């Protein structure tokens, strides 16, 4: 089983996004680096719009992820409600 990961610029918006990821993906681990934050998870990781909205306190469109995204790996499956990275087929 391989890891998937996603990295964001470190700022106020991504603080909420990261908090939401950690709430929804108990296996995820955070690697804090200068200017950026990287989150790894075994095999799969899901970002849920609803959780991000709750943490952020405003409406959130998952495509806003693009603004602060640095890099990622894994197959992407994106809908209006969920953004999933995985090595599943």
């Amino acid at each position, binding site marked *: 089983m391989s890891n998937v990961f996603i990295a964001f610029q470190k700022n106020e918006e991504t603080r909420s996004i990261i908090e939401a990821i950690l709430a929804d993906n108990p296996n995820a681990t955070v690697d804090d*680096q200068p200017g950026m934050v990287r989150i790894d998870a075994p095999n799969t990781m899901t970002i849920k719009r609803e959780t991000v909205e709750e943490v952020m306190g405003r409406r959130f469109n998952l*495509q806003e992820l693009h603004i602060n995204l640095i890099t990622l790996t894994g197959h992407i499956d994106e809908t209006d409600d969920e953004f999933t990275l995985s090595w599943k*087929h």
Partner: protein
Amino acid sequence: MDMKVAKKLGLKERYNLMTRDLDWEPSYQAKEAIYPFLEYEGIKIHDWSKFEDPFRLTMDAYWKYQAEKERKLYAILDAFNQSNGHLGVTDARYINNLKLFLTGVTPLEYMAHRGFAHVGRQLAGAGPRVACLMQSLDEIRHAQTQIHSMSNYNKYYNGFQNWRHQHDRVWYLSVPKSFFDDAVTSGPFEFMVAIGFAFEYVLTNLLFVPFISGAAYNGDMGAMAFGFSAQSDESRHMTLGLEMIKFLLEQDPANVPIVQRWLDKWFWRGYRVLTLVAMMQDYMLPKRVMSWKEAWEIYAEQNGGALFADLARYGIKPPAGWVQACKDKDHLSHQAWAVFYNYGAAAPFHTWTPSAEEMDWLSSKYPDTFDKYYRPRYEHWAEQAKEGNRFYNGTLPMLCTTCQIPMFFTEPDDPTKICYRESDYKGDKYHFCSDGCKDIFDHEPEKYIQSWLPVHQIYQGNCFGPDADPTSPDFNPLMEVLKWYKLEFGQDNLDYEGSPDKKNFEAWRAQATKN
């Protein structure tokens, strides 16, 4: 009053309507006449509609989010410049990374823009065409934001002023330049694999992630802003490149060996270009986030390993040079910086020997190799320089015909022996730094015998200005080549110690910290 509210379309429906649904079947021209480059590489495509952008990004959303990225980026650049942010970097040695970046990488962004504009026109599926259009626009944005960001340094520091002129001429800049020229002169499918896989997935993950995090660590908000902003687009580019690879592999089993050869070739081409990034990371950042070796382990071995484990179900194997590249991680940066230190007179940026403290850091990160093979050299050179015998190599190195890097790499299992490989073709002998580069040449010799090798060109007399007179008794070929490079001797080159950059930075910083 009854109001009928139409339900908002979902992401998948929007993507379908605004990409594939905009396509049409031609009626008065044959498809082969509209897309003439699709067959000669041997790739077989049966159903273009099977290609889908996993991000499902439509043009309207693209404009919206890109505009947002640009506003953020320029706000940071303005703030950084307005507050003389350049005086907040660790020390002015750091700025030499940017000189290498602007002369070596930024012109590639522009070439990527051209390449994707071309390929976006040539692919017969609406999904990849739209994704290529976006990537083409991204790449010109990267070129522009990098030029804007680094133009601020050009106001204060040497070595930036002739970046575009030098990209086409200077010996080590032919390494990244020839990489991209090789890609854009390939067919459309090879280009997609070359850039989507080797450039975006292998190269940018190492350059724009750990190195740019290093820029942030050294106080350069400008590079941090353009680097991470660019990499947010690269996430899309990697995804497009990998999706294209999977698409090719799924369309026809006959595509598998063709794609495997491209992965072998372009992994090695990209890896060789990374030599420059390796030395930036270990030697040119005054404060370091992680070593080249650690970055390689995370972004190449773990990340690339996961990718190749996934591609195995198509019968794809890890690239031919993979094992050697993983062995080299203990040596690459040390050997590269040693060569630049040797040729510090012939490059428009400054070089230095690592300080005692920096050498201790290198020992701790490279416990098996640094003290044994590299520390003695750097200590010897530092000693010599202290005694007034700083050695600048004035003779020209032999270059590898494929990657165009001087032949300094060692044998995979013997770091004390330079690796030499050669091939004969039509009565001439060609030299290579590695099995990987020889293999690439042997498969396409007609392409690589045309390589514009800087050292050969100098010896053939093609790198002097019109006023140079090789028959004059005091003719100095090296100085004439540097003039042709538009390199100001004693200002842009030589050691950091004693350079105008160092003197100015220290004087300005003193002004910034007291009255």
